[in-house]
C-alpha cells in the first residue's frame, strides 16, 4: 500500500489538502461584507465570527492567534482580510501574519473605501477573483504523511463512543505518528482522571510537568469558583449511559490518541513544535476545539460522534466516525465512517480503523467529507474574559 497523498505545495514547506481562498473579517462589524464576497466568488470561503473588538489580555491573544492560524492553515492558498477601521484586532495585524507565512494576501478597511460597504464588496470581489484564478493553476503532487497534521476530536458522545469509534481513531493516530506525521489531542478537561497515564507517556520529565501544571491550575481555579470539577464527572447523563467513574469516561476520550508517546503540550491554537503526538490545552467544546486544531495547522480532523453531530470547519475537512448503529442509520447523511459494524457485524476495531485510514487518504486526495458537502463551516474561539468581566449578580 502506497503511503502517500496528493496535496498542494505551499510556501515554508507546508502541504495543503484543500486549495482555499479565505475571506476573513477581522471584526464582527464586517462579517456581512466577507460573506457577500464569498457568495459571489466560487472557490472562496468566508470565516464570519462575533469577535475582534474590545478584546483584551488572553482574549486578544486567543482571537488574533486563532484568526491568523486559520488564515495560514496549509489548506489555504491566499487570504483577503477585511477590517472596519476602528477595531483592536486589525486587518493590518492579520494581513501581516499571512504575509509572514509567504501566502498571497490583500487587506483593507471598509472605512478607507470611498463608497462604503457596497464598494468594499466590489473591491473584495476583484481581489478574490484574481486570487482564485491563481489558486486554480496549482496542481496536486504526491507527498508523504510526515507533512500531515491530524486533529482528534469527539463530540455528542454516547456510552459506546469510547469502546468503538474512539479506539479506531487511536489506531489511525498511531499510524500517522509512525509515518512521521503529527497528531493533536485537545479537550484537556476530559483528560482528568487519566493524568497518570498521559504523564507516563510524556517523552521526558519537562513534558510530564507541562501536562500536570495546566490540569492542576484548572482544578484549583474552578475550585475557587465553587465548582469541584472532579465531583461533577461523570455527568448524570454519562452515568445513565453506563459510565461509572471519571477515569472510565476519560479513558474513552484519550483512546483517540492511541498509544504513541507525548511529545509536548501546546496552548490553544498554537502550532506543534515538532512531529508526533501533541496535547492541546482547550476546554472541550467541539466547534471551539476544531477551530483551535485548524488554527494549529491541522489539515484534517477526525471527529467521533455517538449521538450524531453535523459540525465542520471552514479550512480543514472533518471526517465523522460513529459507533452507534441507530445514529449511523438516522443521521447517515452526517457520518463518513460507520463504526457500528463492530457491534452489528462483529468487525474488529482494527477492521474499522483500516476503513478510516482509507477515508483519511481519500479525503487528503480531495474527496469531500459529509460536513464539507453539507456546508458546515462554523468557527468559535475560546474566550476567557467574555465581553466584559462584570455582572450585577
Amino acid at each position, binding site marked *: 500500500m502506497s503511503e502517500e497523498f496528493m496535496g498542494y505545495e505551499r510556501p515554508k514547506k507546508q502541504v495543503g489538502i484543500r486549495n482555499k481562498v479565505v475571506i476573513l473579517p477581522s471584526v464582527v462589524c464586517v462579517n456581512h461584507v466577507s460573506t457577500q464576497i464569498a457568495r459571489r466568488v466560487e472557490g472562496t470561503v468566508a470565516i464570519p465570527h462575533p469577535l475582534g473588538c474590545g478584546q483584551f489580555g488572553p482574549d486578544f491573544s486567543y482571537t488574533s492567534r486563532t484568526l491568523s492560524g486559520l488564515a495560514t492553515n496549509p489548506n489555504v492558498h491566499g487570504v483577503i482580510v477585511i477590517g472596519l477601521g476602528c477595531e483592536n484586532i486589525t486587518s493590518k495585524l492579520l494581513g501581516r501574519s499571512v504575509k509572514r507565512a509567504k501566502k498571497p494576501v490583500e487587506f483593507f478597511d471598509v472605512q478607507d473605501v470611498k463608497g462604503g460597504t457596497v464598494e468594499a464588496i466590489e473591491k473584495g470581489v476583484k481581489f478574490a477573483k484574481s486570487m482564485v484564478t491563481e489558486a486554480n493553476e496549482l496542481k496536486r503532487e504526491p507527498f508523504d504523511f510526515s507533512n500531515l497534521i491530524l486533529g482528534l476530536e469527539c463530540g455528542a458522545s454516547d*456510552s459506546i463512543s469510547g469502546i468503538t469509534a474512539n479506539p479506531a481513531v487511536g489506531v489511525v493516530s498511531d499510524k500517522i505518528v509512525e509515518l512521521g506525521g503529527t497528531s493533536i489531542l485537545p479537550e484537556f478537561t476530559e483528560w482528568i*482522571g487519566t493524568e497518570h*497515564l498521559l504523564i507516563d507517556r510524556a517523552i521526558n520529565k519537562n513534558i510530564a510537568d507541562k501536562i500536570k501544571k495546566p490540569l492542576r491550575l484548572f482544578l484549583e481555579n474552578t475550585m475557587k469558583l465553587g465548582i469541584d470539577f*472532579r465531583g461533577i464527572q461523570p455527568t448524570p447523563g454519562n452515568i445513565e449511559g*453506563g459510565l*461509572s*467513574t*471519571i477515569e472510565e469516561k476519560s479513558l474513552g476520550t484519550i*483512546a483517540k490518541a492511541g498509544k504513541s508517546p507525548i511529545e509536548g503540550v501546546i496552548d490553544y491554537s498554537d502550532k506543534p513544535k515538532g512531529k508526533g503526538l501533541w496535547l492541546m490545552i482547550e476546554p472541550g467544546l467541539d466547534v471551539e476545539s476544531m477551530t483551535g486544531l485548524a488554527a494549529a495547522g491541522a489539515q484534517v480532523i477526525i471527529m467521533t460522534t455517538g449521538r450524531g453531530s453535523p459540525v465542520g470547519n471552514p479550512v480543514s475537512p472533518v471526517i465523522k466516525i460513529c459507533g452507534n448503529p441507530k445514529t449511523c442509520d438516522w443521521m447517515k447523511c452526517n457520518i463518513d465512517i460507520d463504526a457500528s459494524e463492530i457491534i452489528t*457485524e462483529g468487525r474488529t476495531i482494527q477492521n474499522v480503523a483500516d476503513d478510516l485510514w482509507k477515508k483519511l487518504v481519500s479525503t487528503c486526495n480531495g474527496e469531500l467529507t459529509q460536513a464539507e458537502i453539507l456546508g458546515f463551516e462554523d468557527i468559535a474561539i475560546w474566550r476567557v474574559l467574555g465581553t466584559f468581566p462584570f455582572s450585577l449578580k
Partner: protein
Amino acid sequence: MEKQSFLIMNSNDNCATTVTELGQGKEVKIGDKFLKINQEIPYGHKFATIEIKKGEKIIKYGQIIGLAVEDIKMGDWIHTHNIKSYYLERINNE
C-alpha cells in the same frame, strides 16, 4: 461475523461493556466459558467477567477504572452502586 451483545476492550479486563440490553438469567459466552447474567444490564453498562472481591480493582481498557466497594460476582452488573473512583480515592488521600 455476527451481532455482538458485549465488548471486552483488553485481555486483562475483568468487566465487559454491553452493546445491547442483557436480561437477567441470560447466558453469554466469553472464549470457551459460559457466564450467567445475574441482573438486567442496560445498554452501554458493564458486567463482571470474573469474581471481584471488595477493594479489588475494576479493569477496562487494561486500566483501572475503579475499586469494588463490595464483593462482585461473575455476571453481576457493575456500576456506581458497587464501584467507586480509584482516581478520586487517591486524590482525596493525598
